[in-house]
């Protein structure tokens, strides 16, 4: 029991450090908040007339539709930023000192993911507030908001696991940073910014089956309609699948790092 409490304390401390690091370094914060906010603004203002297309779903406004995309974009980028920060720790030797300390090795990764989760939750709240200020309406009210925050937080952990796995395996911040454009490939090939039925082929078909689309639709559902169990469970299952794979990869990468050293 005391061992568990000690590990939780370490995870908490590393998580707090990770959050402070993100808020202190503009290059880590910009991708999570500034870029998705700018993209949300320009897409809402520039492509807002899309709601007049015949096959567009019934929504109060384009902003309502776009909020979920911005949140998941932010969660993906929070995962990537967390990976970059972990790789910087490896490059600077901080992770080596943690590995030499009498603490659980998985607490090191979980601490980083705790920070990413907190940033995911923060970004979800930020976008809900931003949306409400600019006229979005969340159909499912408070329950819907809580569900959105939960999904975005869990998604941030799942995506953060991928960033952590690549950071642990490569030990190089520039390699993890190189994944940044890939985040946009994943987003453009999902229904984050537009209904997949209205996208051009072959992107439409890829988006229909992309797990990120299921997560986005799970987050979007409480905003634009009454909750449907199907969208929620598909989102949850996608997060669980990505999370399971990413944590498994992180575990393998950690073992690799312990074997080969830095």
């Amino acid at each position: 029991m005391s061992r568990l409490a000690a590990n939780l304390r370490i995870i908490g401390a590393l998580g707090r450090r990770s959050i402070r690091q993100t808020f202190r370094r503009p290059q880590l914060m910009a991708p999570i908040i500034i870029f998705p906010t700018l993209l949300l603004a320009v897409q809402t203002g520039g492509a807002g007339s899309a709601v007049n297309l015949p096959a567009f779903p019934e929504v109060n406004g384009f902003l309502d539709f776009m909020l979920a995309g911005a949140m998941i974009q932010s969660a993906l980028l929070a995962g990537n930023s967390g990976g970059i920060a972990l790789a910087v720790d490896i490059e600077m030797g901080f992770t080596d000192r943690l590995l030499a300390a009498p603490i659980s090795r998985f607490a090191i990764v979980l601490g980083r993911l705790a920070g990413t989760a907190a940033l995911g939750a923060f970004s979800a709240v930020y976008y809900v507030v931003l949306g409400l200020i600019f006229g979005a309406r969340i159909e499912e009210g408070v329950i819907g908001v809580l569900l959105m925050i939960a999904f975005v937080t869990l998604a941030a952990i799942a995506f953060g696991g991928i960033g952590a796995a690549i950071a642990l395996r490569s030990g190089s911040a520039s390699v993890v940073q190189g994944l940044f454009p890939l985040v946009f490939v994943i987003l453009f090939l999902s229904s984050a910014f537009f209904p997949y039925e209205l996208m051009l082929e072959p992107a439409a078909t890829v988006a229909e089956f992309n797990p990120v689309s299921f997560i986005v639709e799970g987050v979007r559902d409480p905003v634009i309609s009454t909750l449907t169990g199907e969208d929620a469970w598909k989102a949850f299952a996608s997060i669980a699948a990505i999370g399971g794979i990413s944590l498994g990869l992180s575990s393998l990468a950690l073992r690799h790092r312990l074997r080969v050293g830095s």
Partner: protein
Amino acid sequence: MSAAIALSWPTVAALVRRSANELMRVPGAAIPGVLAPTIFYVGLTSVFGNLTDLRGFDTDTYSSFIIPVSLLQGAGFTGAATGVNLARDIEQGWFDRLLASPAPRPAILGGLVASASIRSLVPAAVLLAVAFAIGADWPGPLGLLIAVFGVMATGTVAALWGCTLALRFRSQSAAPLMQAGMFVLVLFTTSYAPRELLQPWLQTVSDINPVTQVVEMVRQGFVPGTVTWAETWPGLVALAGLAVVLTWFALRGMRHMAD
């Protein structure tokens, strides 16, 4: 005066050569500046391609409508990268040595922005190849020439912006600001749709934003496909105005740094 001019050209040429050497020796460094606008171009075309079904679009190929935005984004990223490289040179002390040399400061700035202007052709070439491959309309020789000029001039303006910030903050940490500045200037225009289809607040912003004129100037060859002086001169004025203002700020930054 004549000595200053005599020193200027070799300085500009040396800095352009240095930039070319960087590109040849570390070609991978150019990849992000090419990849990001290309991903955005293909992504935006795939996602918003059916927007052309809305009344108000002069074209039925969104790839033609959005290509000028991606070309200017590529130039913007390249220019911002020049600012990041300058910040690196300042951090490492190399730029101090350059300021202490007898090279005139406008020539140093000229060398930096000239290299950015030339380098902005790299993403433009890739983007145009991708655009024509996925069905963008041929803009005609004059339309293409205006597009290339717009790209190089935007690369210059973006480099001036990046250098101004690098000289102000003297740290690579200012990189997001350099990138975000050009991102905002290029996207908060008629980038996604014609003016009449924008939300009212974005119509107002795009009316004020001088880069809207540059986007329209570069776009005319692709959409509607005819080049006119009326669509060209506002873009030229906007680019000249931005270049003059930002040159003043960058030179002031150099003076403050040398003091």
